[in-house]
């Protein structure tokens, strides 16, 4: 065995220039080969992050749609009335509606629910605030209630279905009354237990939130509401439902967040485009990477094949001599396969060295750049989506890949030299001896 190994080594080293050239080419091929699998994984992971980010964006968009864009605001037009404090001035007031007069809205297709709201101004010593009543009697509408209830509970809890005699106070109102969670508070002569505090926020109302019936009772507005929030099943149906409400109840002012709806639809389209792009990139990375692995593997094996075929042809007389000296076909096969494997193994070591240094360059050179999602922000008033960009990846060669590289080198060396070695082994000595 040592003799065969020694002869194989010497045969490689005696054609130094040729061997070096072959080893360099094979090294680069093997470097690509060991760089590609982690590059594919890394690129796909980066792209997957993009897909996840886009999916999260899409979910956020859906949430926003649920919060705002699928709501239709219905109320009577404000009317001007004389200002009781100054006879010369008028003020705008929101006329009330009877809760039952608009019950047909629920029968309009695509309407998920109709929530009547009473939003009445109140005054307590130094603070103007609103009494905000929401029906809390239908558990099936809880998701819609939650969109209308205070969103920044900092203490205690929010209102729940079935709540009665309880109130959630905005922080300023609680401060004004000097109460906290667990205390009782008297609002318009009615006692409520404070169950939650709505923290300070630029957007939230200075209000006391309670059951609609109780809000109607304490403000002497039994059966009346200030507005309806109509929830539509899909943002694309908002226009249609709003039109139908307007036709059904011409006196109502029906408004939608048109610019937001447009913004959301646009973002949804952008998100879908980016998602498709990212998924296409994912597939492209896989297919390109697989194709490149196949091509590099084939090229690698072909280089070994051709160089060993050339070697066998060049050394036909030597094969004849070895056979004449009593070398078995298996010994000839073994010697030439060992030469191919050794050549490939040396190249494999070179390939690992090159791959360790240049894996990242190979990855960025050989694979489609993974898509990186832009930062998107979702607000109550709209959605801004960041532009997608190409990401570069960083690939490291792990000890497992080193072993894999050496294994692949041995395998390709064996595969590539198998046919030439078989031909060498099959060479008939008499013909080989005559070969010039």
């Amino acid at each position, binding site marked *: 065995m040592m003799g065969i190994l020694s*002869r194989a080594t010497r*045969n490689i080293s*005696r054609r130094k220039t040729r061997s070096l050239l072959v080893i360099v080419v094979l090294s680069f091929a093997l470097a690509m080969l060991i760089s590609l699998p982690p590059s594919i994984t890394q690129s796909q992971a980066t792209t997957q992050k993009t897909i996840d980010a886009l999916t999260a964006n899409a979910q956020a968009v859906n949430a926003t749609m649920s919060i705002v864009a699928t709501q239709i605001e219905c109320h009577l037009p404000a009317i001007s009335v004389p200002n009781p404090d100054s006879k010369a001035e008028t003020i705008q007031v929101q006329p009330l509606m009877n809760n039952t007069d608009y019950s047909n809205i629920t029968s309009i297709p695509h309407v998920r629910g109709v929530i009547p709201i009473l939003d009445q101004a109140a005054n307590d010593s130094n603070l103007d605030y609103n009494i905000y009543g929401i029906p809390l009697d239908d558990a099936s509408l809880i998701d819609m209630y939650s969109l209308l209830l205070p969103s920044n509970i900092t203490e205690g809890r929010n209102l729940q279905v079935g709540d009665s005699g309880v109130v959630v106070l905005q922080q300023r109102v609680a401060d004004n009354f000097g109460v906290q969670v667990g205390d009782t508070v008297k609002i318009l002569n009615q006692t409520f237990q404070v169950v939650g505090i709505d923290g300070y926020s630029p957007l939230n109302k200075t209000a006391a939130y309670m059951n609609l019936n109780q809000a109607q009772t304490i403000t002497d507005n039994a059966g009346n509401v200030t507005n309806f929030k109509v929830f539509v099943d899909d943002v694309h149906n908002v226009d249609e439902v709003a039109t139908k409400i307007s036709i059904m109840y011409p006196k109502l002012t029906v408004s939608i967040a048109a610019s937001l709806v447009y913004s959301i639809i646009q973002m949804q389209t952008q998100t879908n485009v980016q998602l498709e792009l990212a998924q296409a990139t994912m597939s492209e990375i896989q297919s390109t990477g697989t194709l490149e692995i196949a091509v590099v593997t084939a090229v690698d094996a072909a280089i070994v094949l051709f160089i060993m075929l050339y070697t066998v042809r060049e050394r036909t007389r030597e094969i004849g001599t070895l*056979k*004449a*000296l*009593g070398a078995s076909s298996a*010994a000839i096969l073994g010697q030439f396969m060992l030469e191919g494997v050794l050549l490939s193994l040396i190249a494999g070591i070179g390939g690992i060295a090159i791959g360790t240094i240049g894996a990242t360059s190979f990855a960025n050179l050989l694979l489609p750049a993974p898509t990186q999602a832009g930062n998107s922000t979702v607000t109550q008033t709209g959605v801004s989506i960041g532009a997608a960009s190409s990401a570069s990846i960083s690939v490291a060669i792990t000890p497992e890949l080193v072993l894999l590289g050496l294994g692949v080198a041995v395998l390709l060396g064996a595969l590539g030299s198998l046919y030439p070695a078989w031909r060498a082994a099959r060479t*008939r000595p008499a013909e080989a*001896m005559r070969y010039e």
Partner: protein
Amino acid sequence: MNDSVLKIENLTKTYKLGKRDVQPLTNLNLEVKKGEFTAIMGPSGSGKTTLLNIIGCIDKATSGSVLIDNVDIAHLPESQLYKIRRDKIGFIFQNFNLLPYLNARENVELAMELAGKFKGQRKQRAKDLLNTVGLSGREQHRPQRLSQGEQQRVAIARALANDPAIILADEPTGNLDVNNKQEIVKLLLDLNQKQGTTIIMVTHDEQVAAQTQRMLTLNNGKILKDKQTQKSTLSGNQSKAEETQEE
């Protein structure tokens, strides 16, 4: 020393050359005794090298039998023939056929390595054989650093490595100058006379052939003459009368 080491009966070799059949050997019969030094002569295409190749198991007979040490090698499969080549035959080629990337000692060792001999054993024997052929101190030289005569000596040492039954030499002096030619012939004669090595040598050179014990002349695939040329010195046999066999 009358034991037959080689016995050929009705040996015919046919092969196709394009569309026509060529028959370099036709019903050839030959017996070579152990310790005999036989020269085979004949014009080009007479079948000399084909005969040598068949005896050396590197070519196959079409029909007939070829017994080496009483084993008929004519119809053995390749899986058996390589063992005969390894153990029973020693080749000496006109072009020496040394492996250029091995030094003199390693070239001699190669034959023994193929026979599965251990490193220490084959190293010592290679040195001894190189010493026998007059190349002591040249063991580490690669073929390209040896003269042609020296290369042929290495080839002779290699042929002797596994102590074969027959040495087959195909024009061993064909590529050598006069001085080297004579030295190689002398070496072969010494081996034959002192060690009793059976040698069958193809040559075109009558002077070289005349120094052997037996001279066969081939023509058209048949033995035209079979002539005993000198005393068999090793066995001390009586000088034989010149015989001529015409077939």
